[in-house]
């Protein structure tokens, strides 16, 4: 996409088709409110369109640029909400994590969704639920060594997905 291409509405539509899911997921994770998340994504694309001439793919990807805009929008919306003594939709309190940490947490959660079911399952059972490898192996009907190798390949898969998502370690 050449510089300035996002100033065309057709390219905004293409950018929306490619990235709105991730942007909405991060906005929802950050703001804890679907209405605010929609506002954040809408504002992100409108700002991107207004500043389309300044987008330069030599500097970074469109995805990275959109996330940078969304980050600022989330900060603005978070400040506005902090000024109002309200509780988020459904009574769920909004996240209090620093934004960078929220972004990282969202990336890891999204990466966990994208790795294979076998790998995700052993990581959930052994790491998040703290179950012994032998117990997990018996439940899955595989040798304990297989659980260990799945944990290994699961972490490798997670690393690949995180790198695809722009995580640089």
């Amino acid at each position, binding site marked *: 996409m050449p510089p300035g291409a996002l100033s065309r509405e057709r390219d905004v539509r293409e950018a929306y088709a490619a990235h709105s899911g991730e942007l909405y997921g991060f906005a929802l994770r950050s703001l804890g409110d679907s209405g605010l998340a929609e506002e954040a994504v809408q504002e992100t694309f409108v700002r991107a369109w207004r500043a389309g001439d300044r987008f330069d793919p030599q500097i970074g990807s469109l995805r990275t640029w959109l996330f940078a805009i969304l980050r600022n929008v989330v900060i603005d919306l978070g400040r506005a909400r902090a000024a109002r003594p309200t509780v988020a939709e459904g009574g769920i309190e909004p996240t209090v994590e620093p934004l960078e940490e929220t972004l990282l*947490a969202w990336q890891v959660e999204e990466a966990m969704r994208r790795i294979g079911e076998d790998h995700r399952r052993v990581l959930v059972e052994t790491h*998040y639920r703290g179950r012994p490898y032998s117990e997990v192996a018996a439940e899955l009907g595989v040798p304990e060594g297989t659980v260990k190798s799945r944990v290994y390949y699961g972490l490798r898969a997670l690393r690949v997905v995180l790198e695809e998502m722009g995580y640089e370690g």
Partner: protein
Amino acid sequence: MKAEWPDSCRDWRQLLGAFVLGDLPTEERAGLEAHLEGCPACRTEAESLDAVARLLPLADPDRFSRPAPQAPRELGKRIAATIDGERRANHRRRRRRFGLALGGAAAAAAAAAVLVLAILPGDGGGVPEQHVEFAALPAGIKIGATLEPHAYGTAIRVYVKGVRSGTLCRVYLRGPHGERVPAGTFRYRWGEDSTATLSSALDLSRTRAIGIRAGNRTFVAPVDPAGPTANRNSNQEEAT
């Protein structure tokens, strides 16, 4: 997956996941640590995986066990409509500026006609564009809106003056059954361009009122689908 390390390392490598997560039994861990001492390639792999393992506590398994949330289908249309509305407004502004630059009474009259925005024909509907003035507002506050019919719904240009700078304003249209259809938000900035261009999926022909929540107060003005009459006499402030 094709292995990219020597066969002698294969068995050790498959323990690296449990190793970096601190789950390896003492004996296996000691054996692996001895191998890592003499194998830079496996050591590099262990360090790389350790960085990934350190991120795991950030994630909440309850969240990633559920499908990823999806943006509502109409959000894309709303964004396209907002951008389209803003582009049209920019176009009009440029034309107006160009007209004023020409000078003369004719150009000024043309600009005034654009500002009145009373019953200009819309692009995509059977109802005319409408200008709504909010009445009975607190002293010093002025709110006006222009609603323009489109195939996608209604483009809305909102003008606000007199509220505190930085106030978040949420705009919605109300349908024939009292339902609210969101039209987006903007922030009023003192001294800046205070006209916001927004859009809603609700057709202008079905719109009965426009509401603006500015800070903690909501103002509503009726919209007459038949034309821009009676908009000045009965708007109200809603309890919020």
